[in-house]
Every structure is written in structure tokens, then in C-alpha cells.
């Protein structure tokens, strides 16, 4: 199933989808009331007050220059501006062998995302290794082990309470010995204002940089229902370990994940994957056009 159809399946379930809202407002003229309603649609998607204002100002300016008169043309212009923001982020491709560390606050769906991404790489005939670096949350490694079974990939894990850096170290040794193509490292959820936990993450990152010779990426997993706090998450995680991409999860609900526009604008960090369900196939590579279509 394609990105848009999956996304749209989710949207259809909502009683009043954003798409309907915007269609109804595009009937009118381009007056103050129109822009106020437009603001409502964008802010309701968690794009944020600042980013919304900037987007609307830019589209206003462009629409004057291009003498846009019809609602359809305006909509097309708005879409292209929004797509541009997302595509302007620095998006460098992964090369193999690759190690990806998944970081984020508690409960965003890191473990589930790893399960799905492992399956995706496995389908591309890559040798995948999971590393259960969340030694803190009760039964976290059991959960990851279940995903490893489902997708038939190897996993390196320690018992609860072990030093996550040690697990990662062993995981890398194992991957090097077996010449794995992809290493997916799970980490415990941590709130970005807990400095000791952030330091722990930095230590893990340092060990990877010392020991791993292949491509190394850090992906920040963000729950699509998150509001403006996602910016604080990106800022702090980026400061501590450097973030190369975003995995936006739980996009199958009614939340739109509009915060990624502000993330792209302020930090230039691209969205790599979106999660659209709990099944093993419910993961899609990010596509800016289709994502924007899902919002307006």
C-alpha cells in the first residue's frame, strides 16, 4: 500500500478530516477571515504559531507576485511552499554497512519502529542485527526480542539493568564478526531535560563512533501527537548526539505531526520514516508531497 493510501485510510476514519476543513475554507475569497481559518488548519496540525505565521506570510507574498486568484491555485502554492520546507532539510543517504541508533523520549515507539525497520531491511536482503540498548524499562528487551523473531533477524541483548554502553559494544563486535549490513540500536526512552540520562546517551554515541567504522546515523523518534515540545526534544538530542533524521510515529491516528515543518525550518533535519500502525509492514519511507497532501 502506498504512502498516501495508508495515510488516507487513517484520515478517513476521522469524522472531520483536515482535508475537508481546508476544502470548505478554500471556497471563499482570500480575505482576513480566510487567512484566519487557514491559520486554524495549520495550527491544529501542530505546525506551531511561529511556523504557521511564516508559512502564511510567504504564501501571501507569493500569491500577490503570481497574481493568484482561484482557490485551487492558492492551494497548490501553499502545498509547494510546505513541500519545499520539508525537502530543504539536509537529507543524506545511508550507505552500508550502517548503524542506526534510535533515540527519543519515553513512549514514542522506538522499539516498535526498530521492529518495522528491521523487517524492511530484511526484505531488501540485508543482514540485520538488533541491539537491545534499553536495559532500563521493564521487559523492553523482551519486547525487542519478539520483534526480532517476527522479522527473523539476530539480536544482542543483556539482562535488565546492564550498562547499555556494554551491550552496544558487544553488539558492534558481533556485527563486525558476522559482517552484518545493518545494525539497529534501541535505547531507553529519556526526557531531554534529564542531563544524566543524556550524558549516558552521549557515552553510547562515543563508543559507537570509536568502534564502528561504517555509516552511523542517529534517528530521533517523535510521536506524531507531540506538540511544541518536540522542538525542545530535537534541540537537546541534537546537541548531545547529533540527529540525522526523524522517525515520525503513530501517524495513523488523528494527529498530523505538523511539528516536522518547524523541525525542518529550524534544524534542517529531515523526516526519514513514518509509522502508520502496529503491524510489521506499517512503516513508510517519508515523502514530502504525500505528507503535505495528508494535511491540506
Amino acid at each position, binding site marked *: 500500500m502506498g504512502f498516501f493510501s495508508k495515510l488516507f485510510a487513517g484520515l478517513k476514519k476521522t469524522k472531520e478530516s483536515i482535508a475537508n476543513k481546508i476544502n470548505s475554507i478554500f471556497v471563499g475569497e482570500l480575505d482576513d477571515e480566510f487567512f484566519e481559518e487557514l491559520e486554524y488548519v495549520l495550527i491544529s496540525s501542530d505546525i506551531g504559531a511561529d511556523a504557521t505565521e511564516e508559512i502564511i506570510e510567504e504564501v501571501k507574498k507569493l500569491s500577490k507576485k503570481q497574481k493568484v486568484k482561484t482557490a485551487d491555485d492558492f492551494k497548490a502554492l501553499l502545498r509547494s511552499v510546505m513541500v519545499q520546507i520539508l525537502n530543504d532539510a539536509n537529507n543524506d543517504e545511508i550507505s552500508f554497512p550502517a548503524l542506526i541508533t534510535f533515540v527519543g523520549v519515553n*513512549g*514514542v515507539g522506538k522499539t516498535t519502529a526498530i521492529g518495522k525497520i528491521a523487517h524492511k531491511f530484511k526484505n531488501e536482503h540485508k543482514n540485520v542485527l538488533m541491539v537491545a540498548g534499553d536495559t532500563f524499562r521493564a*521487559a523492553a528487551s523482551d519486547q525487542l526480542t519478539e520483534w526480532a523473531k517476527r522479522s527473523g533477524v539476530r539480536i544482542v541483548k543483556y539482562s535488565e539493568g546492564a550498562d547499555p554502553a556494554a551491550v552496544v559494544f558487544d553488539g558492534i563486535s558481533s556485527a563486525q564478526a558476522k559482517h552484518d549490513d545493518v545494525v539497529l540500536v534501541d535505547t531507553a526512552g529519556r526526557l531531554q531535560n534529564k542531563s544524566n540520562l543524556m550524558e549516558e546517551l552521549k557515552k553510547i554515541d562515543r563508543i559507537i563512533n570509536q568502534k564502528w567504522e561504517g555509516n552511523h546515523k542517529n534517528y530521533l523518534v517523535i510521536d506524531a501527537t507531540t506538540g*511544541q515540545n518536540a522542538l525542545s526534544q530535537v534541540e537537546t538530542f541534537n546537541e548531545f548526539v547529533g540527529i540525522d533524521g526523524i522517525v515520525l510515529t503513530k501517524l495513523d*491516528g488523528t494527529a498530523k505531526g505538523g*511539528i516536522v515543518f518547524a523541525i525542518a525550518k529550524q534544524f534542517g533535519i529531515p523526516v526519514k520514516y513514518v509509522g502508520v500502525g502496529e503491524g510489521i509492514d506499517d512503516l513508510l519511507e517519508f515523502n514530502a508531497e504525500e505528507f503535505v497532501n495528508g494535511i491540506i
Partner: protein
Amino acid sequence: MALFGSLSEKLSHVFSKLTKRGVLTELEIKNAMREIRIALLEADVNFLVVKDLVSKISEKCSGERVLKSLTPGQQVIKIVNEELTALMGSTNSKLTIASKPPTIILMCGLQGAGKTTMCGKLAKMLKKQGKKPLLVACDIYRPAAINQLKVVGKSVDVEVYDEGTNKPEKTAQNALKYAEKKGYDVVIIDTAGRLHINEELMNELKNIKKVVNPTEILLTVDSMTGQDAVTVAETFNNDLDITGVILTKLDGDTRGGAALSIKAVTGKPIKFCGVGEKMDDIEPFYPDRMASRILDMGDVLTLIEKAQANVSEEEAKKLEKKLRENSFTFEDYLQQFDQMKKMGNIADILNMIPGASKFKFNANMIDEKQIARNKAIIQSMTPYERRNPDVIKGSQKKRIAAGSGTSIQEVNALLKQFYQSKELMKQMANGKGRFRMPF
């Protein structure tokens, strides 16, 4: 959030010219309302709730009270704060206990909101209150979810009832019988996280509700939730007629505007907050404190309460004087470590200080283990050095590091941190009104 200055500052800027003229113009009110609107939206209060609030606040601000006030900025903040507090309900609500045991608590919410952890916290809290709780595992979907509840149950020494992947409504029903037989007086049912638009799973919850007839149906919501909080809360409330809300992960730096939105659309009270990963990290919900947090005014009340309970008045006065004179030394620092330890987690305390979000705290300031090392470093300084840290140069650092079993880097880090704290304290001591140290 560091990216946006606090509302109080923006408002004082809006009203800065006012003292000269003494009259609040329509334009100034309009500008102030704009700032309030943005602040509330940045705090993730729902767009429509904000619109409603701002029009109410605007009306109140146009009254005489503000016009004649000497500090209009603070008056406006006060009005905003009052409106927010009123909207969230004026007092905190307690857990309802069934007149005929057992009390049945049904937990529900989206994936990753923190239900399982919260079940453990509730069980521990109730146990402390002399109750005998039983945990029931009804999340049969997420891999290892039952196992997670078992580990949580073990850590709080509470039995966990499960029937593997049997139907949740059956498990819940049997758990009740088991509880009655074994004399448990509270039954806490953990359920799978689900999307509010997943009809099948929402029906499952309705069925559990039907068979167990819960005393409390608590919706667990992540405090970082954005605009969608309204849709989620509304749907859960319509489907299940929830009795209350639990806000989780409030130990983060989110402003938590979702709390306001949820209260506004459901009318249901927020009963508890999760404030950390330990099983004791649960607190009652205080609407007034939440209002201050949403406005980024700090949780001064909690801080004052904690400080009052742990710092004697004499000590506090001495400290305040030192802060004002900026004659704070390493000796005071050492004393502070001990006092803060008595007050609880230092990171929590720092977050309660108004405007504290603006300052970047050194990681070492919040790591409790590091504090023990820092204490050792200070204790390895001579009394003269503690009072005059400027004299600590290379050779002294070497001696101190050796004496405390640490490294020169750590000594340097502590010195840096000391000067940073001193700078922070200076700024707070010099600040007007809301920056005043509360102890």
C-alpha cells in the same frame, strides 16, 4: 522552552512604556492579547480553547482594574492565571473509593502514554495508604506488555493477575472474582494502548467496562501531547464516560497546555501527574500550579512548600542575604547540596524556579552521583579556598583533584559550574518580582 521568552517578559515589554502615560490603550491590550495567544499556542493549548480564553481575558483586561493598576503587565498575568486556574477546576480531586470493596480502576489511553508505569505508581501509592491492591494485565497485544506489568508489580510488591492472551474482558472478570476471594480491596486494570479511532479496540474497552463496572475510568495522557489532545480526550470520554485524567511525563520540560484543553472539552478532573520513572513519582494535580507552568511562570508554590519543609527560616534568611550581596561561597554551596538533597530531586527543583527554563544548566548540576563527587572536591579545598575560589589555580587544582580522588577536569567543571550558579543567582536576586528567590 528556551526558544521563546517567557510570557511575563513579553508582556512587560508590551507595557513598558505604560508607566509614563498611565493609561492602557486599546492597541496595548491588543498587543498583549497577541502575546498571550502565542504563549498559549506554544504551550500546546488547543486553538479553539485559546480563542475562547483570549476573548474572555481581553474583556476582563479592558476593565478599570487594569487601567488604574501600577503594574499592568503583572495584572494581566494575574488575570490570565486566574482564568486558566478556573478553567482547570479550582481544587485537586481525589481517587474515588468504592463504598463496597473492591474499588475498580480501569486505565485507558493511547499507545506510549505511560499506562503500565502509572498502574505501578497507583498501586504503590494505594498500598502506602493501607490498601491491598491487585494489578490486572489486560494488554494482550503489545509484545511483552504483560511481562512489563509483572516486573513493575514485582518492584512495588503487588500481585499481578494475568491469563496470558485470553480475552481482556474475560481476564478482567475473572480477576474480580480472584480479588474478592483473596481479599484485595483495589483492582487496577491495565489495558492496551489504542487509538481513539480504532472502533474494534474501543469496543473492547466498552465491554470491559460493562463486565467490571469500574469505580474509576482514568484516561492516561502524555503531557507533551499537542493539538490532538482534544480529539483524543473527547472520543475516550464519549465512548467510556471517563471519571478522570492522569497526566504523565510532567517531569519533562513540556509546558503541558494539553491539560487545559482536555479539561475544557471533557470537564473531567485531572487527578494525578506522573513526574518521573521511579514508582514514587506520582503527585496529585494542582490546577493553579499547572496554570503557572503553562504560562512558564515556574511552579513557585511547590518550590516554596518544599523549601519551607526543609530549610529553616534562619538558614533561608542568611542565604537570601548572601544571594543579594552575591557573596555566595563554596561553603554555602556545600550546604546547599545537603539542603537540596533533603528537598528531593534537584532537577525537579530547578524546573520549579520561574524563568529557569531560560538558563542552560550544567549537566553536573543535576546528576546526584556527580554531586557526591563535587562534595568531595569542595571538602578537599582549604577553608580559605572555599571562601575565595579565585585563588584556585593549577597547583591547587592538582592537590584538590588528588585529595578528592577526582580529576583536574572535574575540578575545573565544578569551578565553572560554581561561577555559572553564582551568575544565575545574581540574575535571580536582581530580578524584579517573579525572579525573587522564594526562600
